[in-house]
């Protein structure tokens, strides 16, 4: 595969306009005098209502990248912006779902979901409506009063998704959100995310190491190579939705991604 042509697909970085802009982002960890370069000159754009996947082997810095976008780590060089606003810290306009559900075990499902709008200045009844409607959206109606230990892993991850959605984010940041789930639950939740995205039409950044998942969900897939984490290629996925799980349309893309990942 020719990586040079892939590189040409990297969009021109325009700092204006809606969506997420990552421009020239580099990050170096320093520990005991040793400097490790984790990210080098990462630039890409996620347009409004676009789903962009970031694929790479473990250690390529993809989760670090997501942390930077989430505003959880501000120690980097470069620019990250959302809708013309520089990212300077966490914000509820960016919903995050991690690999683990990360629910508070002492709070019920609905209390956990309400956490994301706890500091929002809107009337209580509006908060309740948001919680109820988003729990319904992820199919957790009837489980509002359950504690996290009483529900399955898949349901806990749905609750985490509902929590991220409840703050009505402009962009959803998903950090290997289905990696800990069994294959069937995983596929079910992937389709659920697409269904929700079709209703809400927010932007999504999906960090994953699962090529099939990326092809199934994303409009564009960024392949990163490790040490230091760099963008190796960008691949458009122009398969119309709903995308079939099996079919020839994805074979070429799959082959290209695998070669970019150095798998053969």
């Amino acid at each position, binding site marked *: 595969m020719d990586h040079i042509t892939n590189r040409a697909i990297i969009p021109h970085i325009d700092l204006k306009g809606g969506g997420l802009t990552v421009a020239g982002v580099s990050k170096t960890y320093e520990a005991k005098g040793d400097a490790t370069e984790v990210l080098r000159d990462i630039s890409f754009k996620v347009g409004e209502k676009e789903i962009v996947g970031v694929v790479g082997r473990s250690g390529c810095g993809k989760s670090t990248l997501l942390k930077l976008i*989430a505003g*959880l780590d501000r120690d980097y060089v470069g620019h990250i912006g959302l809708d013309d606003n520089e990212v300077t*810290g*966490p*914000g*509820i306009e*960016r919903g*995050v779902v*991690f690999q*683990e559900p*990360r629910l*508070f*075990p*002492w*709070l019920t499902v609905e209390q956990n979901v309400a*956490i*994301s*709008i*706890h*500091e929002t200045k809107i009337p209580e009844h509006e908060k309740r409506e948001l919680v109820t409607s988003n729990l319904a959206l992820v199919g957790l109606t009837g489980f509002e009063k359950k*504690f996290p*230990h*009483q529900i399955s892993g898949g349901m806990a991850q749905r609750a985490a998704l509902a929590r991220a959605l409840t*703050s009505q984010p402009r962009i959803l940041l998903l950090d290997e959100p289905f990696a800990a789930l069994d294959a069937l639950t995983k596929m079910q939740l992937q389709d659920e995310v697409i269904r929700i995205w079709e209703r809400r039409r927010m932007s999504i950044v999906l960090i994953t190491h699962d090529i099939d998942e990326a092809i199934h969900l994303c409009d564009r897939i960024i392949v990163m190579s490790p040490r230091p984490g760099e963008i190796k290629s960008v691949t458009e996925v122009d398969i119309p939705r709903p995308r079939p799980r099996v079919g020839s349309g994805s074979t070429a893309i799959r082959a290209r991604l695998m070669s970019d990942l150095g798998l053969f």
Partner: protein
Amino acid sequence: MGLPITFLALLTLGWEMMARHLANPLVPDVAEVGAELVDIFVSGVFFSHMTITLGRVTLGFLVAFAVSLALGIVMGRNRYARQFFEPAILIGLTVPGLVWALLCVIWFGISLTTSTLAVALSLSPPLALSIAQGIKTVNADLQEITAVYRLSILSRLRFLLLPTLTPFLLNGIRIGLSMGWKVIVLVEIFGLSSGVGYRLNAEYSAMNVAGVLAWTIGFAGVMALLEYGVIGGIERYVTRWRRVATV
């Protein structure tokens, strides 16, 4: 429920046998102690003094709680703070409650400051230590969630810190209260003219052993009620999310 009652019944029986065998005025029999107990309960003396003692312990406890929560969180979070305050905790743990009681009576005389400070001083070290240890168990993943959704300091305290600290707090409260009772009784013996300790001292001065025993039994009863009833109840309530999960 049956076994503790059996123990108490056997204890009473044994005491009665010992009292009859010794036939000494310094070892009153069960009937004598019982009469004294009925007397202080019926006349209401017990409740008025117990309320005063309880109030003093509660006040000292609240001060200790506020101080140790702040101190414990700072120590659990910051290495330098921990190193700085560690000697204070160590000294606090080593100094007997008796010494705090004596010093407070000497310096502050017969006042609310004396009882509050003496209780707070003996309660804070174990409580702060317990909280500092609890802070280290705060889940980093959940901490990130509180950052993602920009929770205020107060909300972080409410949703993350306090629930995490609950078992440590309850443990600290248990240890603390059992120490607090001992200190408050000493303070009351040395320098106050009301409370259970004062009454114990008065009965002692009058050589009324049945009175001393009756006050002690009443006092122990209230303590047990607090421990199993109130603190146990709080514990069951705040850990219900866990209890439900294990059933």
